[in-house]
């Protein structure tokens, strides 16, 4: 199997695997296994997977810059788009199912509840990244500008984790796991930046 075929196969696998969380929601819904409050369950699951995919999208770059592992790089874009996809499902569930398009209630939530404000901001930050995810967009913007723009993902990730931390009533374990993972992923970037600077000096 040549490199192109391997990569193509890898992408098919990553694509299929990324749809598993959605498929499980569907399967559980059909079997009536989403619990007594299925809307809350779906909302929480999509939120969990949004954050998980954001974290996963941040994994390939530090592995490449610190250890030279390039084999994850081809999947970064797809994984990032799945983060957007699950974020879209999470937001859509909130707007269209939980609040059932009660725009007044939604507006009040966005203004008054800081965990919703910052969650909306996190999603808004992902939108330009999803829109400029094509090769054509990279060419149009020029790589340097495109790269600068896509650094917004760091802010989106931080906002997403804070959204989760602020949402939880008392048990912070899960949001703090995300916070720790994000700290590590951003810390690795700082480390590789410092190392690069030292080498240039």
């Amino acid at each position: 199997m040549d490199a192109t075929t391997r990569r193509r196969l890898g992408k098919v696998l990553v694509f299929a695997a990324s749809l598993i969380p959605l498929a499980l929601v569907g399967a559980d819904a059909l079997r009536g296994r989403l619990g007594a409050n299925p809307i809350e369950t779906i909302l929480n699951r999509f939120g969990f997977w949004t954050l998980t995919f954001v974290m996963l999208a941040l994994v390939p770059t530090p592995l490449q810059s610190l250890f030279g592992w390039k084999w994850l790089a081809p999947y970064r874009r797809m994984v990032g788009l799945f983060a957007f996809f699950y974020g879209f499902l999470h937001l859509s569930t909130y707007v269209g199912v939980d609040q059932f398009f009660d725009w007044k209630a939604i507006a009040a939530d966005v203004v008054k509840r800081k965990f919703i404000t910052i969650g909306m901001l996190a999603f808004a930050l992902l939108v330009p990244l999803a829109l400029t995810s094509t090769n054509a967009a990279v060419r149009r913007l020029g790589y340097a500008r495109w790269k600068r723009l896509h650094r917004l993902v760091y802010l989106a990730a931080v906002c997403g984790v804070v959204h989760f931390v602020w949402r939880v009533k008392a048990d912070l374990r899960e949001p703090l796991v995300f916070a720790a993972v994000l700290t590590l992923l951003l810390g690795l970037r700082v480390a590789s930046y410092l190392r690069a600077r030292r080498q240039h000096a």
Partner: protein
Amino acid sequence: MAYGDHDADRQQITPLALYLRRREFLALGAGSAVGAAALARAADAQPPLLKDVRKGPFGTDEKPTPYEGVTGYNNYYEFGTDKGDPAANAGAFRTRPWKVSFEGEIEHPQTVAIDDLISWFPLEERVYRMRCVEAWSMVIPWVGFPLGELVKKLGPKPKAKYLAFTGNLDPSQMPGQRREVLQWPYVEGLRLDEASHPLAILAVGLYGRALPNQNGAPLRLVVPWKYGFKGIKGITKIRFVSGEPATTWNLMAPNEYGFYANVNPAVDHPRWSQAKERRIGEFLKRPTLPFNGYADQVAALYAGMDLKRNY
């Protein structure tokens, strides 16, 4: 009214057997997932039927939330913080022997075995709305006795102005207590006049059966005009005191959870609106009613109080 008379309508409005059958069916179809296993276990171990339960006052005719919802979707952090944790982790919790002590400013302080306590008063079914502070709600056919009757029997002294409730403390049996998610044991409180109000009950059962462990067995508080977290579970002590007692969620986040915690659509929780609620099993949210729809009965208790400040 004898329970027998009422049994026929209870069968109509609350087909418990049907829910349990459906649950078994779901569990069968669901393979080996943990949730399904927990459900199957729960279906095997139905609590015993309670005898001589009469129909009590104040019952709503709204459709009760299915048994599987009432017993599978719980906030009982002593057994874990996920809604399914209590059902999954409370199965082996020992509720006998169990003693409840009554202390403080009362004429007859004493410690009583739970079964003796239950025999002191006739048991009543009270079909109440239950509104959680998280903006969901249920309708639950509780079985219990009026807290006011107990208060009367214990003989509060003039200095008794509040009741301070304490929940069970036993990290060996309550895995959630092995972490300081909240300060343990859980504590709650009521003003004496709130506790004496005929709506307030101590529950020992639901759906005509003994209280499942995940719902607060063997003894829990039910004050339907207040948010659900006031309903302390697994009660071991009630102390009559002169000053406002500490309450667990208020200790945790005083700006979010007050002592009174009366259901009030006009006062938002900082992190979510309280204007509406989702009744478990329904799709569209419904408006939340002041005092959870019990304003006619209880609003007078708070006459002259600023309910925005005393949330």
